[in-house]
């Protein structure tokens, strides 16, 4: 449960929130813990928060790996907003 999934910051929003793209799913996460994050940065997302800024190559490799480990599905299910 300490898994964090890489995402790309699409745009910054009010209240320190941001829209991010996680494996093609758009979600709103808090940037409270990574005040330095900008648009187009890659971040690790955990429980609705970006927790670290990472580089793009790392992000892509990790995403692929998570798919292989079947873990991403579990996390992504949790990510789906209710009712969809």
């Amino acid at each position, binding site marked *: *449960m*300490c898994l964090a999934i890489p995402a790309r910051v699409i745009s910054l929003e009010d209240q320190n929130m941001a829209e991010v793209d996680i494996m093609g799913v758009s979600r709103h996460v*808090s940037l409270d*813990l990574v005040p330095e994050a900008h648009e187009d940065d890659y971040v690790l997302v955990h*429980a*609705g*928060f970006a*927790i*670290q800024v990472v580089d793009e190559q790392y992000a892509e490799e990790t995403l692929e790996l*998570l798919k292989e480990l079947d873990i991403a599905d579990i996390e992504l299910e949790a990510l789906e907003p209710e009712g969809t």
Partner: protein
Amino acid sequence: MDLDGFRDPGVARSVIQAIHDTATSPVKLMEVCGTHTVAIAKHGLREVMPETITLLSGPGCPVCVTSNSDIDTAIEFGKQPDVIVTTFGDMMKVPGSYSSLSQEKADGRDIRVVYSPLDALDIAEKNAEAHVVFIGVGFETTVPVIASAIQQAGRRGIENFSVFSAHKTVPEALRALVDDPDVAVGGFILPGHVSTIIGLEPYRFLAEEYGVPSVITGFEPVDVLQGVYMLAKQVAEGRAEVEVAYTRAVPPEGNPAAVAKMNEVFEPCNAEWRGIGVIPGTGLSIREEYARYDALVRVPVTPPEPKEVKGCQCGEVLRGVTLPFECKLFGRACTPEHPVGPCMVSSEGSCAAYYRYTDYGKSP
């Protein structure tokens, strides 16, 4: 050697060869991260190790190490009138002494799974007449997130929200493991995403005080193998250091902003770990200034006397002294569909990982 599951079998083979060449004296290495547990089980990494290396799974899953009495307390919150309990999904099926959160939900209690503590804040905002308790379980990866949610509750003026802090911190638990003569860990494979928050410093005592090497590594099978190789090399050269095989996600200093938030809201306290007992300084309680967000203050409850499940060896499994399939209940009375202990409930628990990815215990 079956390396089909690797993205680059050639690289895996050469790292495995290097491990065989380097590990000349016997050593027990322990991973303390549920995602590593899954990677090791799924890719059969135990089977490709030389005889000198024993891979053990440690207390790497926050759900699994949560004590029965903490689960009982979480359940007790759900029994209070006008209380909505919110929790991460992993906690739902974990059996406490007498029940589980999902059992209680089936019995009509208002217990809701959320993805983020921010969802719990939204629920509180929409249900002004109720009090929303969030069950806070997790290691340093999760704690800053909860700390920030508590501060956001303050900024948003949400008063009907509190957190039951059953969080735990990792480094001092490692001390308890090295102090345990039954375990005799010779090196640690450290968790990547806990370390992305806390950095290297908190682990240094392992090398400096105990002479135990450790390596922070990622989740790819080759990452884990590389971590094992770096540990074997330290052992062979008689060195003990904290090394990082995962530099792109773990800056040496971690995430100082996240650590600062964690320390603003929480302070260390003692915590009971399932199977290990109380480890001083590994729990986190909510500081006085934030007491109005402390569920133990806002919704006082008295949980029943806890009791342990007969026959479940999660305690020994979590300390690395027993392997999951050595438990008599494994694969028989205890399966992911009907879990007896938390190590079988959580997808990152050692028993569940063994059950899913290995043949042990499945064929009678």
